[in-house]
């Protein structure tokens, strides 16, 4: 009888391909991060960056620019990109729907509304962050409560509840924008179209404290996110505590999205498009999909930020505009190419 050799299994091809993509994305990430630190007004070059990180003597002005402007900006971009892409990938698996993204849970618009409300009543950065987080989580809880039927989360009802909560929050933000004077309007636009201009170390520290544990939860739950793709009943039969998986990974996704909105506003399209593109490249297995999406998300946000500052150095275009403008055509092209192959 021929012995089955577990080492010579298929998928080696996909796994090899995934490693190649991972290496490519890691290099791209490093390249973009360096480019991001070099881009902008003020004369900061590669040598200044190298000097800053090696703690050798460097130009004081360059040091200040890197420490207080460029590096916070890069970190905010990484936090937002990784969080949105991981939350998107996680929610797409949970909902078994490739069109789910962080905004569908209502968390983005809820957090954005929280920030707008906080701006209207308080001036502290902390109030703003806490407002964004609290409203983000509240909106997601509202979506889950509305989406529950007979004590179980219904996928269709939850998606529809997300649309309703988004519309509700959007309407209030819109009303605030309509009534506010011109000077305040710019601030509100920040929350609805996203920007990493305002990132500072205290905001980044708070967001990172929430996001990094949430990233780990999602990355370590890759098998649980795979198993829910079988549907509630089959996943239960395969040994999954489906309710617990929903609570843990759903809460991690909501928390990281709210924390990202708290420092960067709503950056649309990243959570939808990045996992989708990665899935087309390496398949739906979350073991490969999640880490590659994290890199992809960070790359897309950093690249969009570079474009936004290059196009208009004095008054950068909101980053959400760029992510959508870059992401959408790329996504459509990939979808058409893959669709053609499948047909």
């Amino acid at each position, binding site marked *: 009888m021929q012995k*089955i050799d*577990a*080492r010579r*299994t*298929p*998928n080696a*091809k*996909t796994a090899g391909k995934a490693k190649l993509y991972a290496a490519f994305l890691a290099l791209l990430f490093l390249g973009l991060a360096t480019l991001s630190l070099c881009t902008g007004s003020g004369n900061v070059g590669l040598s200044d960056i190298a000097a800053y990180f090696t703690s050798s003597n460097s130009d004081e002005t360059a040091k200040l620019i890197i420490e207080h402007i460029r590096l916070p900006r890069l970190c905010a971009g990484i936090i937002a990109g990784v969080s949105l892409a991981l939350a998107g990938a996680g929610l797409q698996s949970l909902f*078994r729907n490739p069109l789910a993204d962080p905004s569908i849970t209502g968390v983005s618009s809820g957090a954005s509304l929280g920030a707008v409300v906080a701006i209207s009543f308080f001036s502290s950065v902390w109030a703003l962050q806490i407002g964004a987080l609290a409203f983000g989580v509240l909106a997601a809880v509202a979506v889950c409560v509305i989406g529950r039927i007979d004590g179980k989360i219904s996928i269709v009802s939850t998606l529809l509840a997300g649309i309703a909560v988004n519309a509700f929050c959007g309407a209030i933000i819109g009303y605030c924008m309509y009534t506010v004077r011109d000077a305040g309007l710019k601030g509100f636009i920040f929350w609805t179209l996203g920007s990493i201009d305002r990132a500072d170390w205290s905001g980044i520290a708070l967001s990172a404290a929430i996001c990094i544990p949430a990233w780990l939860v999602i990355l*370590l*739950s890759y*098998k*649980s996110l*795979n*198993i829910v*793709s*079988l*549907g509630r*009943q*089959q996943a*239960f*039969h*395969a*040994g*999954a*505590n*489906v309710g617990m998986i929903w609570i843990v990974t759903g809460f991690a996704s909501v928390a990281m999205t709210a924390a990202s909105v708290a420092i960067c506003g709503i950056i649309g399209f990243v959570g939808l498009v990045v996992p989708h593109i990665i*899935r087309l490249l390496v*398949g*739906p*297995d979350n*073991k490969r999909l999640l880490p590659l999406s994290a890199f992809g998300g960070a790359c897309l946000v950093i690249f969009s930020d570079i474009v936004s500052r290059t196009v208009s150095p004095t008054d950068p275009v909101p980053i959400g505009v760029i992510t959508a403008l870059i992401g959408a055509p790329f996504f459509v092209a990939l979808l058409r190419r893959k669709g053609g192959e*499948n047909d």
Partner: protein
Amino acid sequence: MIEAKNISFRYGSRSALDGVSLKVEDGEFAAILGANGAGKSTLLKVMSGYLKPSPGEILINGCPASKMSPAKLAKERAVLEQESLLSSDYTVLETVLLGRYAFSPFAADDAEGRTIALAAIKSAGLEGFEDRLYTQLSGGEKRRVQLARAICQIGKDPCKKILFLDEPSAGLDPAHAHAAMAAAKKLSQNGCSIVAILHDANLAAEYADKIALLKSGEILAFGAPENIITAELMEKTYSARCEIIKNGKNKFVHFPKA
């Protein structure tokens, strides 16, 4: 060994199961026959621990199913459901490997898990399909992949495990239907209890050690095929005229046109 003790189940005000008791020993192949809506799938969902009976109790190897976690249950029994909701582009091997989830929910699949998955793929007659995309398979092929996933969950040592099959031959051509039944029979010969819902009484008579007849949520009869496959019991079960055709040693159930 699995035992259902006086179980009942209601969907709202409608009773689906009423005082059902059933015991399937280690290594026994039990088939459940019944008309549409008789409560077969509900019985399987209750026996597999997905639905909680009220009242009644399910004992899996002597342990109440209600006190077992999903992971503990999954290590004792596997289930082939009537339909699968899987719509992701997993390969056949990746899909079958999902059957190993309960054994290592947080770690990558090891060589042993992959060996078990490949053996399950082979026993479902899917050799060479490992790299094919699940979504691009035919209905019958998908069914066999799901069977392989359930067999993969049973693992290397099927002794004292339980395999539930909800219409394992549905959507399969006669050769593959026999192959699926033979794969289940082989597991039962190695000590695994099989509980299979079947629509084909002849297939049940050929493979099962015992047959249960279910009508309106109650057990009509439970016993060896030669005692159960009679024109009278078949007519009672299906409310349709039935003839038993004898061909030498073999008996065939035939439901003539009304």
